[in-house]
């Protein structure tokens, strides 16, 4: 009995789906409408996703950063030579052959012309100590070599080289009265460091009239569990006015404002467009039901109960929406995934380069949204179809 009922449901739904070609125009409109919504949703959210990915992927949990107490970012922080030594000697820091794995760093900003617009944009120039590579653990040279200490040499992140003109190996950039030569290109695997330019901190200090001061200290922890000990050691030390944070923590706080903005913007646009498409889908399904009035009445007259009729209308709506959703998601993936761009991060006042990321989760969410639009778009028309008085519907012209 149950299987009979199910097969009945199935047959009526299939019968309905096969009649879609008779309503090509309006069916196509509904599907394309949904495809447009899904493409925009996926596209806008892939910006937020890509940005978030860049900001978090560089942060290994066993690396910590120390800034002056109260400073939210490296630019507003400042630490003296004595302080950076105390930080390096705090318990919890891993030790290498040459002592503690800590790198005291300077962070300044320089203006370079952007490739796309030709206008100047801010690039972070970071002065690091020789230990920085071992501390980060994920820096790989793509071309050339590392800078030599004491020389006016720089290495550039892969993202920075892509976005800015004049950063190929052998080229020189003039910063103030100093000339620096590009000797290498590095990557941190798509992380935030890829947007930076690195040089020797000892060379950067005099060039910037900084004296023996730094802005941050990066340390490698003996293990991620040692962060508690390290953090305590920093905050309990009466000679230090500094706070420690793990790198993932720090990076996510640095990108909070921008990723929140992009996400809110994306969700808002998607909800509005979704509403517009929902009204469109409702219209399409109401007219699909209207054009099949006689057909549906005939089914009912033959003794088919209301359920298969409701299900068949819903099936049509969901199939159309899903088709639109899949097309829209595929188009967004094709157009946006991996799209390289850069923007200004307010909180660091400098450029971050990143790729749009259409993740599987995003695709699934987009297609789910299409299905939900289809469900709601079909529900009321389906109920109307089921409630139609048979006699007058058969007479419908």
């Amino acid at each position: 009995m149950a299987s009979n009922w199910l097969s009945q449901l199935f047959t009526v739904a299939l019968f309905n789906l096969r009649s879609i070609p008779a309503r090509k125009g309006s069916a196509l409109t509904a599907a394309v409408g949904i495809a447009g919504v899904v493409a925009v949703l996926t596209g806008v959210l892939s910006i937020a996703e890509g940005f978030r990915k860049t900001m978090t992927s560089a942060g290994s949990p066993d690396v910590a950063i120390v800034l002056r107490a109260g400073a939210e970012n490296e630019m507003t922080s400042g630490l003296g030579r004595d302080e950076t030594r105390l930080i390096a000697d705090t318990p919890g820091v891993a030790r290498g052959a040459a002592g503690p794995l800590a790198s005291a760093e300077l962070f300044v900003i320089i203006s370079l012309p952007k490739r796309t617009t030709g206008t100047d944009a801010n690039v972070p120039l970071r002065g690091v100590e020789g230990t920085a590579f071992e501390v980060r653990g994920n820096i790989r040279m793509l071309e050339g070599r590392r800078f030599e200490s004491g020389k006016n040499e720089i290495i550039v992140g892969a993202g920075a080289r892509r976005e800015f003109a004049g950063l190929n190996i052998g080229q020189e950039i003039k910063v103030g009265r100093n000339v620096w030569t590009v000797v290498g290109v590095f990557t941190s695997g798509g992380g935030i460091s890829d947007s930076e330019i690195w040089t020797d901190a000892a060379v950067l200090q005099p060039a910037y009239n900084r004296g023996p001061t730094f802005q941050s200290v990066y340390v490698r922890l003996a293990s991620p569990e040692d962060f508690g000990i390290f953090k305590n050691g920093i905050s309990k030390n009466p000679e230090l006015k500094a706070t420690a944070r793990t790198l993932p923590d720090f990076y996510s706080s640095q990108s909070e404002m921008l990723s929140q903005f992009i996400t809110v913007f994306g969700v808002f646009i998607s909800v509005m467009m979704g509403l517009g498409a929902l009204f469109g889908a409702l219209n399409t399904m109401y007219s699909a039901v209207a054009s099949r009035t006689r057909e549906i009445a005939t089914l009912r007259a033959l003794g088919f109960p209301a359920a298969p009729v409701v299900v068949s209308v819903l099936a049509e709506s969901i199939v159309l929406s899903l088709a639109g959703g899949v097309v829209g998601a595929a188009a967004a993936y094709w157009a946006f995934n991996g799209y390289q761009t850069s923007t200004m991060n307010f909180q660091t006042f400098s450029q971050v380069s990143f790729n749009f990321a259409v993740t599987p989760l995003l695709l699934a969410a987009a297609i789910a949204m299409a299905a939900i639009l289809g469900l709601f778009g079909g529900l009321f028309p389906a109920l109307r179809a089921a409630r139609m008085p048979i006699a007058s519907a058969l007479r419908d012209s």
Partner: protein
Amino acid sequence: MKFLSLIWSSMKRKKLRSVLTLLSIFVAFLLFGILCILKESLTGGVSATDAARLVVRHKVSFIQMLPQGYANRIKTIHGVSLVAHQTWFNGMTKTMDNASDVVVPSFPVDPEIFMKIYPELVLPASQMEAWMSTRTGAVVGKTAADKYKWRIGDHIQLTSPIWQTEAGANSWEFNIVGIYTGAKKNTDLSGFLFRYDYFEEMRGGLDKSMVGWFGVRVDDPQQADAISKRIDDEFANSPWEVKAEPEGAMVQGFIQQFGDIASIIRAVLSMVFFTILLISGNTMSQAVRERFAELGVLKAIGFPNGLVLMLVLGESCTVALLGGLTGLAMAWVFSLGGSPVPNFLPVWYMKPQDIYLGMGFALLLGLVTGAVPAIQAFRLRIAEALRRDA
């Protein structure tokens, strides 16, 4: 206009369908309006700039400081009338719920010259006097005052991670003596201004007598580029080389750093309009097709072809304008409410040009969606139409 009732009754023919179409057009234009506000907010800084103003900064970047004494040298350059310096203070205060610290855009300035160079900041004369006579006095923009519930007479503290007092404290004391408003709609009122003499006397550290950048007023805006060049040359090969540029160019460059916002917004809007065009166009064709028999009757009783065409176009334009204008009106109402994120986007209003553009789009939408069914109705033969079954 006597045919308006005819148009109206054909819209009422299928109420639900008309309402749904209206709603989808309404949503599209609401989105259009809000995106226009957002675009203006993100890129409109340029229209808030003054063509007679230059900005002079360290050649390497904004964060590098310049000697305060440069002001006098800039002032002697031909064509320059006033010079005022500013410095980024990065003052922080608690949010209203006391949960976290936020940065207030705060700058030590020389009050008299600064207010002359930035006349769009309007401060009552009595408050200006109070500022001149109170060393710890500060004036705040109306947006900031509303946000942090600051009133004249309040004694407040800001902490700065960059600037410490000679005594080594991060916390700075101020008395609010004035609240400034904007002469224009797009004036940024989120700032906090205090006296440079107080700042200079109190601050310790290496950067004493250094300032962030200079605002320069020139006699003749036409000469802005030439004067910028003269200022650059004046300091070439000095320990602190500068870059001078008109304020508009500086803001434009700053905006470009965000990437091409305008083209992203244009792309989203064209997707929205394409989708809506498709949906409402299809509905319109269907609505007309269903009424072919009726249109045939109209023609049979003597309506000329052209009038039938106009009737159909009139209907589609009515639907588009009704939905479009209410959407735009709603966006306008939304813009009056002020920015939902005043810290991030302080300027929040709808440009009249954008409203006219939206109206134009609504009319265009009506004409395009009505075109195909209107031509079909125009060509319709009476005999055929009357014979039609559905």
